[in-house]
């Protein structure tokens, strides 16, 4: 099947538009669908492993989903995105741009898209010539602490005291 460039661009635009309601996932393990995003909230039903969930919202450790004709909350880490066969996102999801980028056949469509993936391949990295001018440009965009604080204030971002945690979940004694 051949897709014109215009159609392709349109498809890519759709793919990156945050129509998050289109996101689907599957339960990684059996998990409870909760009425509210809390561990001690009422359980609506137990979702078996590999149950389809349509993702509506993310908040903290939780996702609000539609699943088995009920709406509720599941733990984010109990869900994987993508297709039922665990093979990653299928075409048609909001991430279809990545499926399109996959060099899976010699069809002209795929070839066009693959060569359209610009930048930061291993080959480009190896061929790099250091660019002092580009570094100066990078430095020219630096924010001041006041600008960072203003962005935080405008976004209702209040700092918190949080320790680092080691890989076993225990607080690190001190920052290295």
């Amino acid at each position: 099947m051949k897709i014109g460039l215009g159609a392709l661009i349109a498809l890519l635009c759709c793919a990156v538009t945050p129509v998050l309601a289109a996101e689907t996932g599957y339960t990684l393990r059996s998990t409870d669908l909760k009425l509210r995003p809390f561990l001690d909230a009422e359980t609506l039903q137990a979702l078996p492993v590999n149950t389809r969930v349509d993702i509506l919202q993310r908040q903290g450790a939780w996702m609000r989903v539609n699943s088995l004709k009920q709406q509720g909350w599941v733990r984010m880490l109990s869900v994987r995105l993508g297709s039922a066969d665990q093979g990653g996102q299928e075409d048609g999801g909001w991430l279809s741009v990545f499926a399109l980028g996959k060099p899976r056949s010699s069809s002209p469509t795929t070839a066009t898209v693959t060569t359209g993936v610009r930048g930061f391949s291993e080959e480009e990295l190896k061929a790099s010539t250091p660019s002092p001018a580009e570094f100066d440009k990078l430095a020219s965009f630096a924010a001041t602490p006041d600008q960072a604080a203003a962005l935080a204030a405008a976004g209702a971002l209040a700092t918190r005291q949080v320790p680092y945690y080691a890989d076993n979940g225990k607080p690190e004694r001190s920052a290295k």
Partner: protein
Amino acid sequence: MNLRLMTRLVALVVLLGGCAGQNGEKFSLQNVDVGALVSNIKGLREVGEPEEISVGRGVAETLLGARPLQPDPELQRYVNAVGLWVARQSERPGLPWHFGVSDSDQVNAFATPGGNVIITLGMLRILRNEAELAGVIGHEVGHVVRKHHLNALRKEAFLGMLGQGVTAASQGRRSEKLVQALAGPTKELYARGLDKDDEFEADRVGVVLAARAGYDPWGLPSALQTLAGIKPDSTYLALLLKTHPAPSARLEKLAAAMTDHFDGYTDAPQQAQRFHRMTAGVRQ
């Protein structure tokens, strides 16, 4: 002695020879005491902050030489404000932090010693909100504050030249000689990637920095979940997956560290609207 160590020793000898030559001292391969060199590598002194910043500039010049910045100054300033806000929650708030969006469709992000962080357009496009951006940036800031790349470069032994008198490097200024000396090892390191444990550690740091900055700390796990949902043979992910543990493995390790410490953040801001407004121009 294995081939790898021998290669490093030869590289060190060549570099030290070059440095000594600059200072007019005698230095020849015949005079090299290999045992002393090995201990020299292991006992290499700590790299000071001005030197680290010079090294970081050299590394960043090579990364930016591979792919230039995206040209929208407003987007660059936005990512710098978010990045600095996150970085200032770390134990190295005073580094000259620079954040840049690379004009690349690849999904990836990079950090250099001394506080330079580059995130690709491809990565920006798969993020849902500012909390996810803060998490990804927090991961990169984690590499900087834990000196992962600096230590990896030291392991390559070539930073022996710093201890041997590349004087411009110690002043935090640009050194053409240093930049050129760093180009090869930079390409090798950033194509090969860090140790897996460094990546897992940077994930843990990233979550904490995003939380300290006031964001929903689940942004990084959410972004990793997105990566885990992309077909692993996608061209967009080639270098990231070559240089990092599998996203599903990172999520598992992160979950073991986060346990229930981050369950109380159901009201923390994600700033989805602001993120989409500021990145709208590169999503079309």
